[in-house]
């Protein structure tokens, strides 16, 4: 019951930090989509680039998150603003699932369908927008879902560099050796991840049904 008392007593702060958390995750995922989606498309057109691009995104993924936040701290311009830095770091982590799923999604479209479109006189652009992206959209949304869920968890670490979010409660609770405070950060974060997963899974299923409509 102590936990609920803490939540109720500090509801304004809980809401503020949750909002910050959502902004961190939302912005970073948005940037990752803006970069990862085009990159994923480009490497389906230039397959000899695919290894290098996916490999680089893989390498970023292997850097421990706390270390990545730390590495970016001394960078000029971003270093001055913890929020920007956190968004950049989270976006970097989100790149791999986005690039990989966009690439795999487009590559898995039935080649006979793409060839039929090409033979009917569709341009590359029309094929991409009207055939490849719609048919790959389920797999691409799955990438966005994975990136978002991972980001919700990772964003708690952003508090370590002062970027705010629900991690503030977690780090504060750890310092105070107070489980209630830790839970006040951890439980809303877990709920956010769960909600994002459910919402994007539903979208994914609807889009995935496009390619096997019946």
């Amino acid at each position, binding site marked *: 019951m102590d936990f609920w008392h803490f939540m109720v007593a500090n509801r304004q702060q809980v809401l503020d930090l949750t909002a910050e958390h959502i902004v961190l995750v939302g912005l970073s995922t948005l940037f990752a989509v803006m970069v990862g989606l085009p990159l994923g498309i480009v490497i389906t057109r230039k397959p000899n680039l695919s290894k290098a691009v996916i490999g680089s995104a893989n390498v970023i993924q292997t850097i421990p998150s706390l270390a990545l936040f730390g590495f970016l701290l001394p960078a000029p311009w971003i270093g001055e603003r913890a929020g920007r830095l956190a968004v950049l770091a989270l976006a970097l982590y989100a790149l791999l699932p986005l690039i990989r799923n966009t690439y795999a999604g487009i590559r898995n479209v039935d080649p*006979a*369908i793409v060839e*039929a479109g090409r*033979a009917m*006189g*569709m341009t590359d652009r*029309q094929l991409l927008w009207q055939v490849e992206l719609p048919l790959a959209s389920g797999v691409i949304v799955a990438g966005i879902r994975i990136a978002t869920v991972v980001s919700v968890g990772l964003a708690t670490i952003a508090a370590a560099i002062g970027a705010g979010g629900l991690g503030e409660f977690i780090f504060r609770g750890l310092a105070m050796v107070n489980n209630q405070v830790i839970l006040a950060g951890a439980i809303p974060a877990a709920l956010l991840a769960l909600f994002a997963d459910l919402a994007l899974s539903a979208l994914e299923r609807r889009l995935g049904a496009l390619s096997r409509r019946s």
Partner: protein
Amino acid sequence: MDAIAQVQPAIEIRRASFRRNGRALVQSLSLSVSPGETLVLLGRSGSGKTTTLRLINRLLEPTAGEVRVNGTLTTEWDPIQLRRKIGYVIQDGGLFPHFTVERNIALVPEIEKWPRERRRARVLELLDLVGLPPDLRSRYPAQLSGGQRQRVGVARALAADPPILLLDEAFGALDPITRSEMQKEFRALQQRMKKAAIFVTHDLREALLLGDRIALMEEGRLIVDLPTSEFVGSQVPLVRAYREAFSEAEPRC
């Protein structure tokens, strides 16, 4: 169309070859098809039939020799414009699973920016032409039978009334009864439409039924190119082998 264009073949292939990775998929092939004529390309899998079709709509470019459509080299055509003048039908229709029947059929009219009313009217006209009820137009391909999908595939190829029609094993995925129906309907359709058509198949009976001429291919080469009536009596060994293969199968059926 002026008098010169009338006599000009719609498709003319002269000593065309296509090599990839040192392997010749088509070797020094010469063929021509006039408007109103149906040429059947007969041959087993890997004999270069599909490659030949892809040379015509410039999905591939010949590594030697030339391919002309309406008198112009395919390499001089804008590939997009060229392909919109060539109807293409593949096995199982090759329909877009996320488009309704109507959008599938109206694909070329849509990318050619026909007004909506004209597209709609054309779709109804084509559904009627290929023997499908008009209420099928709001369905998705997965909701159709194999025969219906194939009919939609033919309707899509005919949508913008292209002068040339390429059919690649078009009826290959159908059960024998539907297949025979489609063959008869295609023949009747072609007699009215007078397209320059190339029909690829490995089925001799289909070739005899549909072709004005039959061109037999083997390992990328043209073995014979004969009017259908002469093909039946040809003593060329490979032609005989084909006939025997099909007549052996006959008594079991």
